[in-house]
């Protein structure tokens, strides 16, 4: 079943025309309402009239996460506060969060896109959908929630965590669809097994909608087997909208993008040039039709490619390949964005340590762990285990309050971690297999 055949099965000509019109509206809106965008366009010698069709998009400058942060909190909003009805903030915790504002129309667009994602995943109004994404500033929970209501299915707003309760709800309510992060899905799968339940016999789960962190095809297979479901990949980022920007269909070969609202480009992250069709590069989104905080050529730093050709599902919307990693050093650990620079700033703020560190990410069982190796500073070494453990504890609690996830801190000998005098520092060892 296709939620919106008019758009999702539209001809290329129709889509291009719609995109071009919406791009013109969007450029006009930001040029006149957002000083930041006006300034950037003026610097590039552009007037709104220079952007006529979607092909003119490449003339416009990129927008970076840092630009949003520099305009914290509401500096890039393109609608007056009287029209903003919802605020969210990204899980990225590099200093200031990234705040997004949505108008009523934006929320309608969002629940439209999530509705398409749900239909892409084979969900209908007969389903009971348990949302195990966190509800709150994070866009995961509320984003899925309104989409489920939009298609007329029953939503179980379980939010994240409390696995025992999740399983009880899945079992007692006969939940048919689970939406959460893929790592949490695996965790739930193992807990179901530990509880002595057999998903095939004891549960009615049949579909999973998983996103907010990168996951491999191998992980998809594992989840599908363990939970006896079909697992779909949903993509989105809070700056652009939240979950529902793209989702894969029954053929699980690439994610169909809601390209009438979010136009995807794949660019070479080094040169900024658009890649040839099928080439891997950085995913860049431009919002079309969004009012509260439209983004022009927003750099996601997520790596993907456009999958050429038609999809047998009948939809004509463009497909992007399952995400292939990041073009920057951001890590996504248990759904939380972690930048090595955050660790560095914490260590720099403490006198007991050197800002020499290494991040090691492992997947133990189903959950990701982050170990941070820190060199102790020679002058702070005393012949005292308690003292060293106190330092270790202090680093741990400072890091955890900034990163928002629990970490393991390991003190290591001075000057044993690799030094990076030239080139880009490699401070991350990611042992997870995506």
């Amino acid at each position, binding site marked *: 079943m296709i939620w919106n055949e008019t758009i999702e099965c539209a001809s290329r000509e129709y889509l291009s025309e719609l995109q071009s019109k919406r791009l013109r509206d969007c450029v006009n809106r930001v040029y006149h309402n957002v000083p930041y965008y006006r300034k950037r366009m003026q610097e590039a010698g552009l007037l709104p009239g220079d952007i006529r069709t979607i092909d003119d998009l490449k003339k416009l400058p990129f927008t970076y996460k840092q630009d949003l942060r520099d305009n914290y909190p509401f500096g890039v909003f393109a609608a007056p506060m009287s029209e903003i009805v919802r605020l969210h903030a990204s899980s990225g915790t590099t200093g200031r969060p990234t705040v997004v504002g949505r108008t009523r129309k934006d929320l309608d667009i969002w629940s439209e896109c999530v509705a398409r994602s749900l239909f892409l995943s084979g969900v209908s109004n007969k389903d009971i959908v348990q949302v195990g994404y966190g509800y709150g500033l994070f866009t995961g929970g509320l984003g899925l929630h309104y989409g489920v209501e939009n298609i007329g299915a029953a939503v179980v707003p379980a939010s994240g965590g409390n696995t025992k309760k999740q399983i009880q709800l899945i079992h007692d309510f006969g939940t048919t669809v689970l939406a959460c992060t893929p790592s949490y899905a695996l965790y739930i799968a193992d807990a179901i097994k530990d509880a002595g339940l057999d998903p095939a016999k004891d549960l009615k789960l049949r579909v999973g909608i998983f996103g907010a962190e990168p996951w491999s095809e191998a992980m998809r297979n594992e989840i599908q087997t363990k939970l006896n479901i079909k697992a779909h990949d949903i993509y989105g980022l809070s700056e652009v909208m939240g979950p529902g920007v793209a989702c894969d269909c029954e053929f699980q070969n690439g994610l169909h993008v809601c390209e009438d609202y979010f136009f995807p480009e794949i660019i070479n992250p080094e040169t900024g040039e658009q890649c040839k069709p099928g080439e891997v590069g950085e995913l860049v989104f431009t919002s079309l039709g969004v009012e509260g905080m439209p983004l022009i050529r927003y750099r996601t730093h997520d790596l993907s490619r456009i999958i050429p050709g038609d999809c047998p599902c009948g939809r004509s919307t463009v497909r992007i390949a399952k995400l292939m990693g990041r073009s920057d050093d951001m890590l996504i650990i248990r759904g939380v964005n972690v930048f090595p620079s955050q660790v560095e700033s914490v260590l720099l703020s403490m006198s007991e340590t050197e800002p020499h560190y290494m991040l090691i990410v492992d997947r133990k069982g189903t959950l990701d762990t982050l170990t941070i190796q820190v060199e102790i500073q*020679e002058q702070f*070494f*005393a*012949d005292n285990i308690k003292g*060293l453990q106190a330092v270790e504890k202090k680093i741990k609690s400072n890091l955890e309050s900034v990163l928002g996830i629990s970490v393991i801190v*390991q*003190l290591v*000998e001075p000057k044993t971690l690799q030094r990076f005098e030239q080139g880009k520092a490699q401070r991350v060892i990611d042992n997870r297999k995506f």
Partner: protein
Amino acid sequence: MKIKQLSVFLENKAGRLSEVSDILGGAGINMTAFSVADTSDFGILRAIVSQPEEALQLLKNAGYAVSLTDVICIKCPNTPGSLAKALHVLNAGNVQIEYMYAFSMGEIAQVVIRPADIANCERALETHGIELVSSDKLYTL
């Protein structure tokens, strides 16, 4: 009679202790006694060595986090109850001990003690006639 003990930070990683002993051995520095305290991810090597200052410099140059710590060393007969007697003295004198380690040779046992308050500890031991080992003697054992 304070003794300079060498304290070295060690990661719990194969080969660290042997590397330290290679460095010291290579420079002709002898270890009279040592102990290793460990936690799940790091340890501290504590050693009495023949030339503490040289050992400190050598290990520093080799990139170790290392320091010298004042300890005292007592000597008692290697017989049942001798250690207990010394410990009673410390107890009575309200001397808190952070850690200690011991080694015995023939009829003599020597106990290295790191008290919380070194002056207090020395006083308590001396007033009760417990023999302290001088650094010259201990370093060259």
